[in-house]
């Protein structure tokens, strides 16, 4: 009985530490790095990253690429990203605060270099139940333009990436990325 109790304590401690580490430590480190690299007041603002920050944040991208990042915060309402992308290959990806990619679009999928994405947070369980109860009395809002994306968390990153094949085209790619905006609606 005594040995079983200690074994149970060992397993409970191991399980709690394992789950705590896996679920919370990576998110904590991710948030810490993003906060260190982005200005603290830069929420819902699109920023062009320099080569050093690209290297530190994006293991899959080259330092010469054009990368613009918006750290969105949906706690006080939806955010709209108006993208003006350069010609050629590009992707726009939305990540949650845990680094989970929730949305991605490429030039081939978009078929257009200018578009709008509206970010909102997924309703919580209580809101979903309320929504079901009031579904018959509410009017459904229909978006008039662009895509609507629901994110699982209030905070995260929107990333615009455009690889530059030739340095001659870099200024044009930068100008296009700088023409994009990320703002609270």
């Amino acid at each position, binding site marked *: 009985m005594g040995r079983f109790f*200690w*074994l149970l*304590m*060992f*397993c*409970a*401690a*191991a*399980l*709690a*530490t*394992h*789950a705590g*580490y*896996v*679920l919370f*430590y*990576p*998110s904590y*480190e*991710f948030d*810490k*790095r*993003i906060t260190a690299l982005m200005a603290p007041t830069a929420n819902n603002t699109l920023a062009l990253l320099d080569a*050093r920050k690209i*290297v*530190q*944040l*994006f*293991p*899959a*991208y*080259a*330092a*010469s*690429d054009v990368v613009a990042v918006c750290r969105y915060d949906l706690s006080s309402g939806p955010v709209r990203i108006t993208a003006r992308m350069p010609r050629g*290959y590009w*992707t726009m*990806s939305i*990540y949650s605060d*845990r*680094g*989970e*990619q*929730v949305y*991605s679009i*490429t030039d*081939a999928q978009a078929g257009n270099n200018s578009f709008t994405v509206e970010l909102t947070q997924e309703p919580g369980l209580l809101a979903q139940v309320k929504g079901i109860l009031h579904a018959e009395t509410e009017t459904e809002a229909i978006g008039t333009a662009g895509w609507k994306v629901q994110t699982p968390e209030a905070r995260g*990153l929107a*990333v615009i*990436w455009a*690889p*530059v*094949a*030739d340095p001659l085209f870099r200024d044009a790619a930068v100008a296009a990325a700088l023409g994009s905006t990320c703002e609270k609606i």
Partner: protein
Amino acid sequence: MIFALTAGAGAGWISAVSMIENHGLTALAAQPLWSERHSAASDPVAPYVLGYFAAQGQVPPPGTSRHFVRNRDDEGNTLRAECRYVLTGKIPKARNWSLNLVGGSTYANSLTAGQMIYEADGSVRVGLAPYPVAGNRLTMPPSGSVHLTLTLHDPLPLADGEALQLPGLAKAGC
């Protein structure tokens, strides 16, 4: 009591670190020195897979990309910053790719599809060295551990029975 809790916490911590490091890393069947680092949120072990990048404060590659890593040369020896290596072979067809030589958490030297000078047969030859070499070159970091990453962005699907082939990496001297 304290011993059981401490030992349990230690075991839980070690297993978590190990699983985050190794889950989502698959060695290529034909070239086991290259491993693919998965990043799909739909992966059955997504907390570990995504945890690897997040724990290093990095954003995972987009879902449309495939990310490969290696830290050994063709003889199986660990890459060293003071040595010279030559990467040769063809890079699988993709809309874009980038080759990064990474040292520590802040150093990375890159070559992309648009910057590469190709051989006549479409293959690539890249010198990895701490000093200038002729042709394509990735500069080694001043010291410390080194690894190489290759990311294929929107790779073309492979034909039936075709195996993914990535370039080899031979040591040329120290």
